């Protein structure tokens, strides 16, 4: 049983996510981790932007802040610096975090505030009906790319790594244990930690691209690991496979980890004063 279930606002359930939505799986992993770590969520704040992913925080009985589109990280930054003793977790989507909120993301990474940002990456703007997102792969159809997407997709992890995040990882909804482990590591990390979680939009993106239902989408995540795919490139093929509008192969797990003072430490905020010696 998911011990995190006890942390839900029971009177709000069931949640509004569509049948088979990967976000729910990520949410499940998140509360599982929260339940494992915290006896009470009094000192945990979940800050979200706008979008399907951001709705998730409302169902968790913590200090939850459902902010404006793209700005969750800025709210979180203010909150964290005002209440450094809080554990602040930002839940954002790919459109929210990388599109409209991309600027806040890179600056949050640069500032290295001790936040954890979990990006629910479903390749589209789900809440608004499945439009092109910064993570939508080339060729994919969305309601705003009726002829297929001509643009390239963002690699959020590369972006935040370059921006100076001190913990960067990627996980998938399909691999809940890995996801849980990475959420834990991200929470353990002192400084800005970023987790790109590949999930799926079952309703809009899937329908537009004929990707099937929730479980089908989960299966399509099975390939998302570069190490495995590199192994496969060594194997002979009888002919070149046809390309699909699928995500680029992306490495999973911890992709970057470094250590530098957090903003709280530099500011010498309570609980973040530099250690003696």
């Amino acid at each position, binding site marked *: 049983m998911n011990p995190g279930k006890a942390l839900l606002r029971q009177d709000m359930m069931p949640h509004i996510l569509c049948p088979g939505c990967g976000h729910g799986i990520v949410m499940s992993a998140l509360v599982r981790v929260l339940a494992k770590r915290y006896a009470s969520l*009094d000192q945990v704040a979940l800050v979200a932007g706008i979008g399907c992913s951001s709705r998730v925080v*409302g169902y968790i009985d913590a200090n939850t*802040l459902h*902010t404006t589109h793209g700005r969750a990280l800025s709210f979180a930054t*203010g909150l964290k610096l*005002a209440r450094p003793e809080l554990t602040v977790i930002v839940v954002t989507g790919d459109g929210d975090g990388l599109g409209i909120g991309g600027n806040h993301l890179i600056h949050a990474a640069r500032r290295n505030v001790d936040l954890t940002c979990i990006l629910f990456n479903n390749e589209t703007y789900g809440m608004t009906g499945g439009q092109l997102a910064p993570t939508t792969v080339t060729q994919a159809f969305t309601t705003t790319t009726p002829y297929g997407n001509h643009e390239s997709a963002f690699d959020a992890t590369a972006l935040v790594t370059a921006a100076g995040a001190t913990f960067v990882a990627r996980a998938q909804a399909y691999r809940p244990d890995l996801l849980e482990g990475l959420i834990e590591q991200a929470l353990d990390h002192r400084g800005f930690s970023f987790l790109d979680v590949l999930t799926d939009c079952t309703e809009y993106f899937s329908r537009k691209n004929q990707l099937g239902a929730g479980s089908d989408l989960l299966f399509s995540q099975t390939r998302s690991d570069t190490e495995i795919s590199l192994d496969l490139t060594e194997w002979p093929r009888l002919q070149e496979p046809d390309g699909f509008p699928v995500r680029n192969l992306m490495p999973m797990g911890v992709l970057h980890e470094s250590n530098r003072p957090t903003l709280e430490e530099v500011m010498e905020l309570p609980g973040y004063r530099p250690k003696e010696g």
Partner: protein
Amino acid sequence: MATELVSGNEACARGAMAAGCNFFGGYPISPSSEVAEALARLLPKNGGVFLQMEDEMGSLGSVLGASLGGAKAMTATSGPGFTLMQEHLGYATLAEIPCVVVDVMRVGPSTGVPTAPSQGDVMQARWGSHGDRAVIVLAPASVQEIYEMTIIAFNLAERLRTPVVLIYDEVLAHMRERVELLVPHQEDLWRRPKPSVPPGPGYRPYLANEEGVAPLPNFGDGYRFHVTGLMHDERGYPTTQAKAVSQLMSRLKNKMEPVTEWILPESYRLEDADLAFVAYGITARVAKEAVDRLRDAGILAGLFRPRLLWPVPVTDFQKLLGHAGIAVVAEMNQGQWVEVVERLAPRSMQVLGQGKLGGEPMTTEELMNVAETLMQKGARVL
């Protein structure tokens, strides 16, 4: 108390410190940057947090986050940045998060003349955010008043749990004047209302107190609750029910009403005035000079200076201005608050908007000319 020669922006920062501000999140923009610069210097020394954010959305976002954490938080900006902040102003109103936003007005639209004064943000301050919302906008006219009104802004924001906008122009921002930096008594610094019930099941964060204000605790106080920009019920949970939505909107408006009783306008030689200037900010000071000089010239002029632009001080306006035949609304824009005056003026009153564009303040001579011309025409004055 100390008397110092300080600029408007500096006075704003000093006022914020006096009000107990301990968080500033901002983004540089002329002509407001000195507020941030001053607070960057003052806050860390006093245990506060100064944060230069990546943009204005982020600035106000961080302010709201900090405020939910319990901070007295503010930001300062100017026209374009103020525009970017509108969404968060709406958010703060709906979510009832106290904060102070200083808008130093410059010539617009767009980048306009970044270094020249204007009073073009009056309507934006009122209607800038989408949807409908009640707002509090304060308009100081001197450096001294900037100092004092910054403190007042925090008081209003905290007590009513709403964003408060302090709006002044570039001239005031950079003008230096002698200011008496009065240190307010602690009891004069209002604190945000807090819940009177302990945390636990049945706790309703958005259940209003007798003043119509939701007494939210701070994050981390042991109450766990949900804050959202969606229309919400007393639990803070999203709702789309028309009744709940209209109740919420009414409450948010009604709780602002006492403000007009707390913040009174300035009335100068209005008692017997035939012609009343209506002006705020730097323009009011020009008008004041014009009043004196017109009176020297035999014209019975007076000045009505709202210190609270929104909500509109209706009662005071009608009480103080009722008998003047002519109202000249002087503002550095194409006519914004004049619409308020037109709406409030008795039928007998002739209302004339006197705008000034281009980035130079109105001059005494200009106002005198207008007044003299009006009087010469005879109009319906005497």
